[in-house]
């Protein structure tokens, strides 16, 4: 037994075992949760997991590496269309479809990332916005391949037989999406906690200083773009399964902007921020459209009420928690801890000008 422990320790670093433990715990909890809720909530849970993949990748690019992308909806479209095209007339294993879609989006992201690495600020925003506007047009232009406005249908993933014949497909999809999201989170957090994450932040904070420290700034920016695109591609592929249909209308500019708003509301630069943002992204419209329909308002008002409330949530979030839900929670915890510690604080962080070491 100790030999097995020693072997585990030699292969799995403390960080990895912490990440794997957290992911496994979250996976079991979410499986239990998904088994207790109905099909509609499973469907929403899957959506949160899917958006969490896309926003986590976007947060790595925008929050951690400082490159604003208004075009991540288009990269999701690359993943979704790859999936739909692969499944047209074929029955391929899910894992293969997911990985191939991820690869396709990474490739597009690599090409675009090379251009993006030369652009800064508003120019980068403009270029990525052009991607968001332009790419879905390809689907309508070449409708014989991409199905035009009607799009391409995607068969739902079938649950394995041992789960029982009447296992709800929504729940199976939720499980897949949750597993994919957790694997993504583990890998991204490995990167963020490593020298790669530090390099990304150094490039974000001061490019000239990063270059002088030996960092190839352009290469680093392209790598961040590719990782982020891979996440968008994976999310897009799952999105195709989730929606059962891939059509240009689903990947408009609105989707790209929603992804950006999600990381801003959730918290820039952190993976938990991406998760919070995805919950807001899925549940605020879901709750408000339910509310709007129960109020029996005239359709002109009722149809726009969810949008109005989403906008209001954005404004309120910016005023109350400018550093996002994640930042707000962190401050809350820090405050609570300070209260608990009470008068025993030793004024750490206050540094003497001439003697920072306090010696």
């Amino acid at each position, binding site marked *: 037994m100790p030999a097995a422990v020693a072997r585990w320790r030699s292969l799995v670093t403390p960080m990895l075992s912490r990440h794997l433990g957290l992911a496994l715990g979250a996976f079991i909890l979410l499986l239990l949760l998904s088994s207790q809720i109905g099909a509609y909530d499973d469907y929403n849970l899957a959506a949160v997991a899917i958006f969490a993949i896309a926003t986590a990748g976007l947060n790595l690019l925008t929050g951690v590496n400082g490159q604003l992308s208004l075009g991540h909806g288009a990269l999701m479209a690359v993943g979704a269309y790859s999936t739909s095209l692969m499944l047209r007339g074929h029955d391929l294993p899910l894992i293969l479809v997911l990985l191939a879609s991820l690869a396709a989006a990474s490739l597009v992201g690599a090409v675009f990332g090379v251009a993006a690495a030369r652009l800064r600020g508003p120019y980068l925003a403009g270029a990525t916005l052009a991607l968001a506007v332009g790419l879905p047009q390809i689907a309508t232009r070449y409708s014989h391949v991409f199905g035009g406005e009607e799009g391409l249908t995607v068969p739902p993933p079938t649950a394995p037989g041992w789960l029982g014949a009447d296992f709800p497909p929504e729940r199976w999809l939720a499980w897949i999406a949750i597993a994919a999201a957790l694997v993504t989170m583990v890998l991204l957090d490995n990167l963020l906690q490593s*020298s790669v994450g530090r390099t990304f*932040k150094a490039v*974000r904070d001061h490019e000239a200083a990063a270059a002088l420290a030996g960092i190839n700034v352009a290469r680093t920016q392209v790598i961040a773009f590719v990782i982020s695109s891979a996440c968008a591609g994976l999310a897009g592929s799952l999105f195709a399964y989730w929606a059962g249909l891939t059509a240009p209308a689903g990947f408009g500019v609105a989707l790209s902007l929603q992804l950006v708003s999600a990381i801003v509301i959730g918290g820039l630069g952190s993976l938990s921020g991406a998760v919070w943002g995805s919950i807001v992204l899925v549940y605020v419209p879901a709750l408000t459209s339910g509310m709007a329909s129960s109020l029996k308002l005239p359709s002109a008002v009722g149809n726009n009420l969810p949008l109005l409330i989403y906008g209001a949530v954005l404004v309120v979030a910016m005023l109350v928690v400018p550093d996002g839900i994640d930042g707000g929670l962190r401050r809350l915890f820090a405050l609570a801890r300070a209260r608990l510690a009470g008068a025993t604080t030793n004024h750490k962080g206050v*540094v003497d*000008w001439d003697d920072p070491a306090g010696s």
Partner: protein
Amino acid sequence: MEQPTLDVADLTVRFGGVLALDHVSLRAEANEIHGIIGPNGAGKTTLFNAVCGFVRPERGTIRYRGEALLGTAPHQLAQLGIARTLQGLGLWPGLTVLENVLVGSRVRPNFVASLLAMPRADRLERRLRDQAIQVLEELGIASVAGTLPGALPYGVQKRVIIARALMAAPDLLLLDEPASGLSAGDIERLAELVGRLRQRMSVVVVEHHVDLVMAISQRITVLNFGAVIASGTPAEIRGNRQVSAAYLGEDVTTAEGGASA
């Protein structure tokens, strides 16, 4: 005779119609502290920018230990053993002091090992952390390792900058105004530190604080309007009428105290 660590010859840099550097030459020998002084706008930082590949000179050569340096991209210098600090600090505010120093290392774990959190990435990370703490201890700022630099006093931030440069264990350290904004006590400590570094590397220091440069340098090059007006030992520079004129204007009889008064 050993190759000079840095050998700049006949360097001319022009920005549009402005001659920023005019046939500038200087040599920094191994284990030498070489001071560069001159009034504002003399071209001191431009000289550093040319050495680091940020600006392209019109003519001239830059050699590092005998190898031509022109055409080298800024990010390739660290691997060659050249580190530089920036005038405006250039710390990364989103990284802690320790992380700032860690990024300064020439050694980086490879991407896949980091992605999968493999044991060898972990081992390397721990080795680098130990090394970074050592550098911070040498500079007396190990106690603030976990702090974000923005929360620290300016003098401490300047030490973090030097720590980051030292993390690369350079053979040539370029310091751009290391004393600006420092208290008298901090400047004294800086002088002592740079003096110690000389055993391990060559240091070229651009500085306004003439007393400091006089105290620590073996050789000094004086720039004015982009041209070298004098070079030599501190004693030679102190007695140079042209230098005094550049700093103080026409009358130079009271040049003894340099520009520090």
